């Protein structure tokens, strides 16, 4: 077995190096994958694509992987490119995430996920609500009580623009608590780190951020996490309750996943989804996942489309309520 794996790895590396599809038996369905990354080197999309490619190749699931960064237009440049050159993009997977839904609702780019071939969501991060260690709020219920008394006293910091993810999550949460999402005093910061600095300086009371990032800050010992937006608790944070179990019917997952070019054959698309599904069983993936602190969330093909449609409805409704559409 190990001999076989080694052989596949070598073949994969060779294929990546010369850009040709070497086809070892196990990878006959997929061949080599070309990852299109809609952002620059070093970003979240970049890490996801390269990590997935690494796991697929090292796990012997594809023959090889190559990567292409194409930044611009919040991902719009890469989407337009994939659609325009669809005929020659059979071997291409584009990485994307929740912002493709948000930005297409906003009209940042004219296309949506419907103009592409959704393959699968692969990982997720949940929203988390964080307070400073010495905050007067012990539980999420305390925050909700204070919000009900005067929404303006709860300034919520987040690392995205108004109407972005960090804003939508508290808006959904306070709405589920019977509040008016429009009254959420959301303060936009440039990035999660700055929002964190804002929380620690005392100018905001609650930080809305990704659970992965929040866990990093929890380890630094300056904050407490009050709640998260997953359907169930996750093993990395067994003490953090979900909003659902606290009695607020909200769940939100910031997924990352992959899309093929429009018009991709079902056969090919299913093969990609299958390879990604197989990937979770490889050691190579576990290594990449643990290194990046990702949470698995596998939603292939039709399930992915349903999930995207549902997310589009939820986010779209909330954005209209907030008046950012």
């Amino acid at each position, binding site marked *: 077995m190990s001999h076989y794996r080694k052989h596949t790895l070598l073949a994969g590396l060779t294929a990546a190096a010369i850009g040709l599809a070497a086809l070892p038996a196990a990878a006959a369905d997929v061949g080599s994958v070309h990852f299109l990354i809609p952002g620059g080197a*070093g970003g979240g999309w970049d890490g996801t694509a390269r990590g997935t490619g690494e796991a697929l190749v090292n796990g012997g699931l594809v023959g090889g992987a190559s990567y292409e960064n194409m*930044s611009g237009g*919040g991902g*719009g440049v890469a989407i337009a490119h994939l659609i325009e050159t669809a005929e020659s993009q059979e071997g291409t997977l584009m990485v994307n995430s929740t912002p493709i839904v948000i930005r297409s609702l906003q009209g940042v780019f004219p296309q949506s996920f419907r103009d592409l071939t959704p393959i699968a969501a692969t990982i997720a991060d949940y929203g988390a609500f964080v307070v400073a260690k010495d905050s007067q709020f012990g539980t999420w219920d305390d925050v909700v009580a204070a919000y009900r008394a005067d929404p303006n006293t709860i300034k919520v910091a987040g690392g995205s623009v108004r109407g972005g993810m960090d804003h939508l999550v508290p808006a959904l949460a306070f709405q589920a608590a019977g509040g008016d999402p429009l009254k959420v005093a959301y303060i936009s910061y440039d990035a999660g780190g700055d929002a964190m600095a804002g929380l620690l300086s005392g100018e905001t009371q609650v930080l809305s951020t990704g659970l992965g990032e929040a866990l990093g800050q929890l380890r630094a010992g300056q904050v407490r996490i009050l709640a998260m937006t997953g359907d169930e608790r996750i093993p990395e944070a067994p003490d953090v309750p979900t909003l659902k179990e606290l009695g607020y019917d909200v769940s939100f997952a910031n997924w990352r996943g992959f899309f093929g070019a429009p018009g991709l054959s079902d056969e090919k698309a299913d093969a990609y989804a299958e390879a990604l599904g197989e990937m979770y069983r490889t050691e190579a993936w576990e290594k990449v996942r643990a290194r990046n602190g990702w949470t698995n969330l596998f939603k292939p093909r039709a399930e992915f489309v349903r999930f995207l449609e549902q997310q589009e409805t939820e986010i779209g409704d909330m954005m209209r309520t907030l008046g*950012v559409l």
Partner: protein
Amino acid sequence: MLDGILTGLSTALTPTNLAMVFIGCFAGTFIGMLPGLGPISAIALMIPITYGFDPATGMILMAGVYYGAIFGGSTSSILINAPGVAGTVATSFDGYPMARKGLAGKALAIAAYASFSGGTIAAIFLLIAAPALASVALSFQSPDYFALMVLGLTAVSAFAGRGNFLKAMMMTVVGLMLAMIGSDPVVGMPRLNFGRVDLLDGISFLLLAMATFALSEALMTVLKREKISDAARAATQGRMGSLKLSGAEVKEMAPVVARSSVLGFFIGVLPGAGATIASFLAYGMERNFARGAKKEEFGKGSIRGLAAPETANNAAASGSFVPLLTLGIPGSGTTAVMLGALISYGVDPGPTLFTERPEVFWSVILSMYFGNVILLILNLPLIPYIARLLTLPSNLLVPLVLFFSLIGVYLVSFNNFDIYMMVIVAVVAVMLRLFDYPMAPMILGFILGDLMERNLRRSITLNDGSISFLWERPITLTILVITAVIVALPLVGFFRQRRRLAQAGEGG
């Protein structure tokens, strides 16, 4: 804190990182020595190379390049009276006369010792001041940041020197305007992108830095056609003289170095004031302190006149890392480029850097110290040989710089549009330079403009729509008052001078 220092020490002392300091110092010295290319270009050229590096390693390389470039600038100031960097213009006042007397070796040695001492003393200050400021900075809120940005932007113009205040101000505004292009930072809606998708994310900072510094400086070399290489050949083939200093000379230097380090460090900490201002102020201060014959020596090869600016510019270079590392606010054009580099490594400089990424924080500070040591023990003996590189013909050099800057930007974005835009920006920058418009305030305006807008708008939202935070928060008010004083000072000088002229007119 001791833990942090030890982590930083072990990070900085890994073979890779030590090699990086050395490579950085060497590359920086070389680039800084080339006329026209300063630390900003040197650092901008390094950004694409360091993509994918560990943040600490990348920053260590940058710090090495920074020091090397300043040191390299002094070498060309002393040998051929052609400062590669504005921060070493004052070095040429006494360094070049000294070299012409056949004491080039001694002048270079003084410059190296002064740089080393200035850097060392400032690194110690940094070690103390940065954590202290970082803990204070944790309580800084958005209005305070906004006020600091205003201070930084006005200071860079106020210190721009006589007659340049307006030009520097105008370039700052150009930078602010360029920062508006892209998307609204709070609402996320496109603005001023002329319907172009490529402009939705705004102008890339690396592109702007490369186009306005590396590219346009290379083009300026072609336009000016200076016979630098002839002068360099003469200087490098002539006698360097001994590198040794006498005991009396060391004794003369010591107090100058002590005073200039302190001055340089604090000037460097001020947002908007950097190595250039520090070197001029230190030179002026020493000339005022000198008495009798020693005063007469200034401008004719004075040891003090050489040691002061060299100490101060290195001390200021260390000092300017304080606001960068603790507040995330670049104090100068160079640290603005460095901030861009940090962000591209995924490090978010600010008050949380000290607690969340202590290994980055401390290894940068410590590697600055190693940078100084390496400059002294490696660069100084090598200088006569490195100086030969000054004779590299510009028809070889210019294409090299053009190639590296264009490919550097393309390799990050892989977008053709960036190449076109870079060329356009570079051509405009060359035209502005021909009319003596400074580029550093523009790049600072560009970087700070975005931060300033976000902080102002955030302050207003936090304050429920009122701007009363401007006078209600003590820290904000203090910083704004300091800003007002800094703007007023050159005006006071201007009016006093005019009155003196008027009185002289009446007298005559």
